[in-house]
């Protein structure tokens, strides 16, 4: 069922929801946008810029999170688990929502459920905003997703001139919008046109057919040092990536807290072992880990690429390294290896 939300009623609707839910939506912060709790004075930034710099994975796996507070002397601890009561994330992009479903396969497994992650997922409704005009740094269609992909979303919105047309995708989504006015045939036709144009406007950024095999094959080649040559190892590409999930657990001695913090395989210290041995001593091996994880190991696990094409690593790398260009080089490099060998 499709519904409409008239744009000029948007703030009012979000305010109404705020009475029952914690509402989070992208808002202007300096030159960027960021998911923040909605208040009367919020300045929404749904489209301008196109997506937030900081990934909404932080709403489920915060950059820093207290897991427990301890009393060293008494050797006692209190578990800390701050979960939202009921929450709506409004205006999340499909790439970022599908990234959450990828991370579900890490954090919500049968063997060990991460209660922080699972609790937040359970209590959150995701209202997505499809991408009518994907910017040039996006490449979701190349990696098997798309500008109106449904994965992870409870509802998806398509923006028309003065309304958002909403398609409910789950029972939660249906419930949230059931008293909204129904979309007309005309609305629905516009939606189809916009969605198909958006998809068609996106080019294939690189060949994914056989890419995993190519990368596996290149594991011990010079390809990695070549593509990583100018990388600073700053880790921006991984911190901002919606599918990166590595974390560290440390005791904050001053605060008597055990905390988990985002971590990154792009740092030397990440894989440094006590013996002095480091299996990933240079930026080449670390770049290899980053790309292999997304474009090979994820496929081994769930037969999906672990990159949703959000383009953040492309947009925010301080030296302009572009994962698409790196991956395009892989197939050329392999043909060289094959030709020489």
């Amino acid at each position: 069922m499709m519904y409409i939300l008239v744009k000029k009623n948007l703030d009012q609707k979000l305010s109404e929801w705020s009475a029952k839910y914690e509402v989070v939506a992208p808002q202007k912060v300096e030159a960027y946008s960021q998911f923040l709790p909605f208040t009367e004075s919020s300045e929404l930034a749904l489209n301008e810029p196109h997506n937030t710099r900081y990934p909404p994975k932080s709403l489920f796996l915060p950059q820093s999170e207290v897991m427990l507070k301890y009393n060293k002397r008494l050797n006692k601890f209190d578990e800390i688990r701050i979960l939202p009561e009921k929450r709506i994330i409004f205006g999340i992009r499909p790439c970022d929502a599908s990234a959450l479903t990828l991370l579900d396969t890490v954090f919500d497994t049968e063997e060990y459920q991460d209660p922080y992650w699972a609790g937040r997922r359970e209590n959150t409704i995701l209202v997505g905003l499809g991408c009518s005009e994907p910017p040039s740094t996006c490449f979701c269609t190349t990696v098997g997703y798309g500008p109106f992909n449904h994965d992870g979303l409870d509802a998806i919105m398509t923006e028309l001139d003065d309304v958002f047309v909403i398609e409910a995708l789950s029972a939660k989504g249906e419930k949230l919008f059931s008293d909204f006015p129904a979309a007309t045939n005309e609305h629905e036709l516009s939606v189809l046109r916009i969605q198909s144009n958006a998809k068609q406007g996106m080019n294939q950024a690189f060949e994914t057919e056989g890419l995993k095999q190519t990368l596996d094959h290149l594991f011990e080649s010079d390809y990695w040092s070549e593509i990583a040559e100018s990388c600073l190892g700053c880790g921006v590409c991984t911190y901002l990536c919606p599918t990166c999930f590595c974390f560290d657990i440390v005791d904050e001695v001053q605060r008597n807290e055990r905390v988990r913090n985002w971590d990154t395989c792009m740092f030397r210290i990440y894989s440094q072992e006590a013996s002095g041995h480091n299996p990933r001593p240079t930026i080449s091996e670390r770049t290899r880990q980053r790309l292999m994880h997304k474009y090979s190991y994820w496929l081994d696990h769930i037969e999906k690429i672990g990159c949703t094409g959000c383009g953040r690593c492309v947009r925010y790398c301080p030296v302009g390294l572009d994962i698409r260009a790196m991956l395009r080089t892989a197939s050329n490099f392999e043909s060289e290896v094959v030709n020489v060998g």
Partner: protein
Amino acid sequence: MSDNGHNPYNPIPMHIVRAYYESNDRSLKTFELVFDHQKDCDQFFSNYDPGQFCQLSIFGKGEAPFGIASAAWEGEFVRFTVQKMGSFTKYIHTLQAGDPIGMRGPLGNGFPLEDWKGKNIVIIGGGCAFSTLYALTKHVHHSKHRPDYEELIVIYGARTSGLCMYKHDIETWYQRSDMEIHQAIDVPEEDWSHHVGYVPDVVKDVAPSPQNAVAVVCGPPIMTKYTLPVLVNLGFAPEDIFTSLEKRMKCGIGKCGRCNIGSKYICKDGPVFSLAELNALPADI
């Protein structure tokens, strides 16, 4: 996706009941831990298999992984032998009987004991990594398990006799008719009547038969590296050779990404792997 209330990051409260030095240079210390709550104890022993490890947790110091050195039948305690390395292990060495400590586990896969039923087991260890092999040997010794396996051969090496762990117990193994024990030290010492030499050479001398046998090797990387080819030369298939990997770990439950090699997480898919499985992993070790 429902919350079952259990938080796998919470340390289980325990106390140390026994703590003693294992080596004369005091670099190895053994701790036996008991559970503060019976339900944690029951939970632990319903899940534990030899070869698994735990995260020991000390508030203000953090956590680090250690192999379990006791078999379930020994009693309602969990044994660890800790080698003094850096800050965390140095601190653990200061703990004594009566001190509280946290633990998360059992973690990891453990040895594939079901698959080994009906086979000869060759156990080869060196250094403090022998801890889980000690647990394995003790497990097999139990009258309930012993009939499940054929011959049992243990080869254990240490640099000096002073560094040999679990000495008093292992001396009694020479009297057992259901196993062979070969101990070795690197260089000759007065009063040492067992083998002298490096573990790979002792394995060559003992030359265990690969017929209907599995071999499991745990030790310092250098020992493991030189022992694996000896076993291959003796005719052991890569599928029948097992080892346990040590990687840096944080969560121990396949979430934090730290111990990743290729598509495996060592904490969750390991730490025990067959040589065949290791050979299939990318060279990221």
